């Protein structure tokens, strides 16, 4: 096996790992990974919020289909969801959809289902006494939700949201499958081109992912400690 490791392959292609073909071509590599994760995260936060609220609506004609949808998505591998988007999006939107958008939609759809569960748990976790106290002062239902339940619930949910974001960062690696040149794809490309340093390349990107995710995991833990309501006796 000769010289065991040769990390020149990393230094030689460093720019490519970081930003792909940018600015000569589209953004790729780590930059695209972060872009995909951030955009999907923002979108799925709002979708998840809406889904979560709808899933708690008393009217079964609304909550039942919403819950069914959430459960179906949660029952599927992300890979399947991405393949579905790949097929259905162009049909639904009546126009061509770039792969990176396909992946963003897939990640958003998938993650919204999980976000909705976080929202749900956050809302259900607010003690009944809070709602009762608010109702007793004469606040209407939507006011109770807006002024009392959501502010407390969202704050309680922040650590889970951050954790979900970490999952998203990891999940963007599946964009590889449909040929979006994010970090994993770029790594395989370099691996394919050089064909001699798979160990070096995969260790390198694993470490890249690790630092990125670990930073957010730590943030979530820190927030969890910071944001915990001190128990009201």
């Amino acid at each position, binding site marked *: 096996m000769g010289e065991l490791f040769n990390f020149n392959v990393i230094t030689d292609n460093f720019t490519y790992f970081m930003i792909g073909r940018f600015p000569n071509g589209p953004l790729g590599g780590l930059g695209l990974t972060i872009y995909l994760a951030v955009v999907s995260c923002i979108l799925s936060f709002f979708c998840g919020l809406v889904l979560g609220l709808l899933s708690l609506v008393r009217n079964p004609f609304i909550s039942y289909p919403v819950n069914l949808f959430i459960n179906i998505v949660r029952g599927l591998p992300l890979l399947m969801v991405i393949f579905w988007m790949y097929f259905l999006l162009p049909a639904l939107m009546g126009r061509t959809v770039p792969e990176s958008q396909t992946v963003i939609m897939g990640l958003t759809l998938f993650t919204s289902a999980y976000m909705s569960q976080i929202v749900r748990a956050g809302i259900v976790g607010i003690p009944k006494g809070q709602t009762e106290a*608010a109702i007793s002062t004469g606040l209407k239902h939507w006011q109770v939700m807006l002024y009392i339940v959501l502010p407390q619930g969202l704050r309680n949910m922040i650590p889970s949201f951050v954790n979900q974001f970490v999952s998203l960062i990891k999940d963007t690696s599946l964009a590889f499958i449909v040929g979006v040149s994010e970090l994993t794809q770029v790594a395989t490309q370099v691996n394919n081109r050089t064909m001699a340093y798979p160990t070096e390349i995969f260790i390198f990107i694993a470490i890249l992912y690790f630092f990125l995710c670990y930073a957010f995991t730590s943030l979530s833990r820190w927030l969890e400690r910071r944001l915990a309501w001190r128990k009201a006796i």
Partner: protein
Amino acid sequence: MIQFTGVHKWFKQLHVLNDINLRVTPGEVLVVCGPSGSGKSTLIRTINQLEPINEGKLIVDGMDLLDKKTDINKLRAEIGFVFQQFNLYPHLSVLSNITLAPLKIRKTPKKEAEEQAMTLLARVGLAEKRDAYPSQLSGGQQQRVAIARALAMKPKIMLFDEPTSALDPEMIGEVLAVMQDLAGTGITMVVVTHEMGFAREVAHRVAFMDHGVVLEEAKPEEFFRNPQHERAQQFLKQLLSPMH
């Protein structure tokens, strides 16, 4: 002010309120007592319809609670409710806890609402805590803020559901003092409590419940000296001297 006529309520099979007939006149302080599970909380919660009733008639402040046309939110704004567990909003400061409902429901101007809130805080002895958060207060202080919050809507009726039973013995006194002070202002009050000292000194009338039935209604002096019902005798004996 409050008039129960043949009120019944069931939780599934459980008959929690059984033919309640009870009248509270304006300015009256009624203490409700009775053993655990007897339906006291349920009774008091029907008054602002936190629990709907199944049968009978319930008139509060001239409005029929079973009438579909009654605006329940408006009625609730006229009734202050103080819970056993305080239920202050942990994400709002003491001041905001008190001003939230006046601002959002009564549309009171902010300045006025805050002035009122400060008057109330002074009255419960917590003026200096205006910017504190609930978690920074002791239980007794939280409960006094909860009373101030209920009073901020200038209610005609105040309901208390065991307001001192989650408190350490040392803090009970401060909350009872505020309640006694309040009773002196002539507001209508219904209080569920085990504090027989309070009942004896402040209540105009005591109602004793067991198994969803109001077994006895009497002036406090009569009730304590000479309870009519056997169950009430037992209850008082246990409560006043836990040893024998």
